[in-house]
């Protein structure tokens, strides 16, 4: 009997460690897209929905992209009709919740694009989370926000 209990706890421990996933594994990325920048406009935004299946909050702390010289996390603050764009240190994705990166709000800012974007191109973005894990996202370039985006 004692022996069986031992085996059971070993099994539980093994399976528990198998479920100790990284933040990158727990986050699912939905509908990523990059806005086609106007000619000569040196920066553009990348948008997506980040879902967190974990029971703890996960923070997106950085983003990198080979398409831009600088990639930052940004937010817009609307202060009485004045839009203020600011770099932010992190985007929190609540336990069991989601964070929506969308125009006029949170976005990954691609600054100083290395080459002009074209509609239909795909931009690679690497998202870095607070536990050090990272996730690669392929975001298609679109001129207009895809239908139904953000309506989740």
């Amino acid at each position, binding site marked *: 009997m004692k022996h069986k209990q031992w085996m059971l706890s070993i099994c539980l421990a093994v399976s528990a460690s198998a479920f100790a996933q990284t933040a990158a594994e727990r986050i699912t990325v939905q509908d990523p897209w990059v*806005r086609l920048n106007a000619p000569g*406009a040196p920066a553009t935004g990348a948008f997506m929905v980040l879902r967190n299946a974990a029971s703890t909050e996960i923070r997106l702390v950085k983003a990198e992209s080979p398409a831009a010289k600088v990639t930052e996390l940004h937010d817009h603050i609307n202060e009485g009709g004045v839009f203020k*764009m600011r770099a932010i240190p992190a985007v929190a994705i609540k336990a069991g919740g989601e964070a929506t990166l969308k125009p*006029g709000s949170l976005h990954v800012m691609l600054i100083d694009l290395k080459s002009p974007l074209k509609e239909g191109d795909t931009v690679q973005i690497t998202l870095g989370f607070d536990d050090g894990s990272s996730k690669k996202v392929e975001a298609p370039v679109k001129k207009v926000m895809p239908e139904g985006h953000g309506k989740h």
Partner: protein
Amino acid sequence: MNFSRATLITIAAILAMVLLGLLALGKAPLRANMPAGGDFAVRTADGPLALQDLRGKVVLLYFGYTYCPDICPTALLSYAAAFRKLSPQELEKVAGVFISVDPERDSLPHLKEYARFFHPHLQGATASPTEIQEIARRYGVFYARQPADASGRYAVDHTADSYIIDGEGRLVARLPHGAMPETIADELKRWMR
């Protein structure tokens, strides 16, 4: 607590007046809290552009800057979508003008290319910083250049309303950022003659 009949009637009357007052405020024409607006002269890659030149057309006016990665493109994409909802005859009666509040960075050729990317009916324009300031003040536009980062990049905080000017050069409507293309198209049609 015991209120006399008269007190209750008085309270009811005051409440009714407040309610009516609020309703009247809500129904007040948009014109009531509209900035002065008025004529302006700016420059485009194709030459000078004065609001007087656009008499007879409904003008859809926006103040922004081309380095703006999100707010301005969102607005201009909605203008393009609104223009697509108009018939060719209606579109002929409309002029879209994008005035850059960042003349230090936004050259005229660049503004032309930028505006055309969104819609051929959209003109990109700017003027000297002093002139822009004067126009912005009359239209109730606020903008403030932010400190530059190590590479000299800077953002410009700005209001993002859209202005509609009728065929006689009067500022007749102001739409908040995020106005749907349908709303913009309806407003443009409303002021057409």
